[in-house]
């Protein structure tokens, strides 16, 4: 059997290749993200000073919407021809599949965030008082927090009715501490204040839940 990391890499590259070929999901997602930013800017029209206070929250809510739409199609291709059965029957470890999907979603959502951020900056006349690299770190940690649990819950909701609504229903409550952390960290950095404790919280959250997902994914995948 190939090394598990080899399987993770092969699965990830296969997903990226397939996405690149069809560009189905990414195009609709990009457009959706743009729409979200525009709708938000209709709803909230702050001054430059105010915007620094609320931008953290607004941006992350927008990212959250985009993430949920992305996460909902995590397993779409595998469902189409019951490909998951082929995976379950093979000796490949379930966690390799999980990590590949989680990394794929991570890349996907980061791309969406990279597109949405300049739009936010433009619409809200945002200027960060803190170093932008810190914002990037918060974005990465926060996105991983959403994506790791999201990929796990997406797999869980495969076995439920009302699949699409189950994912956010399960994800949002469990992600509450991470969401508070992301928003607070972003707001503080934008305002030039230190966000070290919030970043530590995000790191802890990421470690705890990545471990839990890796421990329980195989059980969930085989729950039929």
């Amino acid at each position, binding site marked *: *059997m*190939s090394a598990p990391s*080899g*399987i993770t890499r*092969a*699965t990830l590259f*296969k997903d990226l290749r*397939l996405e690149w*070929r*069809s560009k189905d999901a990414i195009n609709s997602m990009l457009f959706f993200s743009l729409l979200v930013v525009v709708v938000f800017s209709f709803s909230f029209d702050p001054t430059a000073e105010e915007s620094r206070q609320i931008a953290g929250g607004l941006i992350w809510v927008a990212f959250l919407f985009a993430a949920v739409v992305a996460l909902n199609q995590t397993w779409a*291709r595998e469902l*189409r*021809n*019951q*490909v998951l*059965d*082929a*995976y*379950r*029957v*093979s*000796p*490949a470890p379930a966690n390799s599949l999980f990590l590949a999907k989680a990394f794929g979603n991570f890349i996907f959502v980061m791309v969406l965030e990279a597109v949405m951020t300049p739009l936010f900056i433009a619409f809200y006349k945002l200027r960060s008082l803190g170093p932008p690299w810190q914002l990037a770190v918060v974005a990465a940690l926060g996105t991983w927090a959403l994506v790791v649990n999201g990929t796990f819950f997406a797999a869980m909701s495969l076995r439920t009715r009302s699949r699409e609504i189950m994912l956010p229903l399960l994800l949002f409550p469990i992600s509450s501490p991470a969401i508070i952390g992301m928003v607070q960290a972003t707001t503080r950095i934008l305002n030039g204040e230190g966000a070290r404790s919030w970043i530590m919280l995000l790191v802890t959250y990421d470690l705890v839940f990545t471990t839990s997902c890796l421990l329980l994914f195989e059980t969930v995948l085989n729950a*039929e």
Partner: protein
Amino acid sequence: MVSSQSNTSPVITVSNLVKQFGRFAALRGVSAEFAGGKLYAILGDNGAGKTTLLRTLAGLNHPTRGEISILGKSDFRDICDQVGYMAHPSLLYDEMSGMENLTYFGRLYGINEQARCREVISSVGLDPDLSRPVGQYSQGMRQRMSLARALLHDPKILLLDEPFSNVDVHSAADMVQLLAKIRDLGKTIFVVTHQAALLEGVADEFVWMETGKIVDRATEFHPPTRSATEARA
């Protein structure tokens, strides 16, 4: 017919296998032993439990009660690299070509060389260099590619669920010949099918299932008599 190296111990043993989905009992206590190196045709009406039996053997369904032993092991994970499974959905990615699909699935089994994939695709009568995505294949081609995926890791046991459904006559005949060849190499094959006639003269045993139980096993298949057909009409 070349006789395979006969195994004296059964390759698959099932005892009192029960599978219930809520109140619906798909398998009602199936007990059987299957020797190695044979091609078994599993027949029965819709709802008889054939697919459920195959899926339970493949480790995809957890039995409600009862035991399964495959190649002496009761945990499917121990022998999963020696079992090949094929179902009515193709279990392939529609957006990739046949070669790409097999290359990927080969990785799951530790097969990293393309040569093996090409060999298997050729053996089912398809062109390895065909770049068309599998989603655009005809049904016959898709079933053959699906079979290729099941054969990729050279499993000792093949579990095939309705491999010939919606397949044209020629492709089906080719697949049967291929299965006979594989059986002659000593592999054990289980084929669930509605088209028993295709396997006449090839299958070693016909296993008839009815409402969740095995009711008959015979070396010859006889279609229902005319009176029976009339009675149903």
